[in-house]
């Protein structure tokens, strides 16, 4: 695919051996980029397959997996966020399906999506301490240690 038109969004194309191609973008440009990819006739990525969050120990990476129904192509947008203040703009205005994905990531990684009004814990119970899928997570909740007593 021709990604040169994306230069105005400050993108960096990452291609490593044994990995898929990623488009790295700053979190401030994310919404604009996704909007462009979704609506431009050339790309027309109309379905957000999923959002993948990865804990890279120093920071978090989010991968937005976009699929196109018409051209049967994909694009993977990667965003790096700072671990100390994990915040990223929400994309539910662009892809409505992102709501559950964002809730899930908020629940399991503690990444906050600004603009997402109803962000809530999706799987873990209310009042759960910590974010389980972070690499430094230690299980402290008493509700799970019933069999060790």
């Amino acid at each position: 695919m021709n990604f040169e038109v994306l230069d105005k969004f400050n993108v960096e194309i990452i291609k490593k051996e044994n990995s898929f191609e990623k488009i790295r973008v700053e979190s401030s440009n994310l919404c604009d980029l996704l909007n462009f990819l979704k609506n431009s006739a050339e790309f027309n990525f109309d379905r957000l397959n999923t959002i993948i969050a990865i804990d890279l120990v120093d920071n978090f990476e989010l991968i937005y997996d976009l699929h196109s129904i018409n051209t049967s192509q994909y694009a993977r947008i990667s965003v790096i966020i700072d671990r100390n203040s994990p915040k990223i703009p929400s994309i539910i205005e662009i892809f409505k399906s992102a709501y559950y994905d964002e809730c899930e990531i908020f629940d399991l990684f503690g990444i906050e999506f600004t603009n997402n009004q109803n962000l809530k814990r999706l799987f873990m119970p209310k009042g759960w301490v910590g974010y389980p899928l972070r690499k430094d997570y230690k299980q402290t909740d008493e509700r799970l240690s019933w069999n060790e007593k």
Partner: protein
Amino acid sequence: MTKNRLKINIGPQHPSTHGVLRLVLELEGEIIKSCEPVIGYLHRGMEKMAENRTYLQYLPIVDRIDYLSGFFNSFAYCNAVENLAQIEVSKRSQYIRVLTMEMNRLSSHLLWLGTFLLDMGATSPLFYTFRDREVILSLFEELTGQRLMYNYYTFGGLRHDVSDDWLDKVGDFVKIMPKKIQDYEDIITNNPIFTTRTKNIGVLSKNSTLQYSITGPNLRATGIRVDYRNSKQETGNKEHNSHGLGYLVYPELDFEIPTAKTGDSFDRYKVRVEEMKVCLKLISQCIDWLKSNTGEIISPIKQHLLKVPEGEFISNVEAPRGVCSCYVKSDGSGNPYRVKWRTGSFYAVQILPKLLENTFYPDLMAIFGSLDVILPEVDR
């Protein structure tokens, strides 16, 4: 909440939520005004589990993500690891994988058909479809030793080969099945009660299915002909990163993709029934190939010592409930660094509030049932 509204709580224990979904409904008389799904009752931390286990140790667990179509999860994970570690899969293994997966899709759709109609108040079809599903499960039991959690695929191959005897049994089953499917259609498709309850109920537009990332038969019921098995896309633009279309040997097989037009509950039913017929077609093609060809199926690599080079991969599989994607990131050690599952039901639950707004309370079953949601897949 206005005064006249009745807040009603469906689930987590309720006869028709297919597991432990909870829906908080607000009713005005019998009309649903708002719906809020509450999930997480079956959250088992599948993704966290992967990080503490080796690649092989995680393999039996993935079958449990969607217990009705274990082969698909298993394949998605194996496919990702094989691509990362660059393991070749022999042709015969691929054919057996297609054969087992299509049988699994058939059994999953049969169970869906029975429970969907049970939700609508018809008790008999449940027993009929379970009777046929039982045959498939017995065949699986004979092949893998398990009825639901197969653990049959390995990295680069299968645990063991299929016997000709077993293939004959599958062949017999494929021969009687079209008549059974015709029977179901006779009792259901033209039933006026069924059609009035499902036609124009829970209509999904093309746009909203894509917006809400609905995939699988639910997407095809709206008329969009997208199937990740098929390489012959309508406007197939084949470049290096088309998303894994036509995985395994599907491009060599001959099958059509059933679609419908309006995207209501009836169309979702129709598409699944047609898909069952396609499954049979694929199964018989696989049997023909397997009978006339031999080949190695046991993978030469040492499964338990598997070290995967650094990298990441997403494999997309067309599961019975929509696209099942498995993302695997490896840091070069014996354990996966991160595994992420994307399942069809997760997004089907998300669209419920939109679909259920201003419908009648009994429509809840016609809509929710037709989406074919399975809860372990939602919560993972």
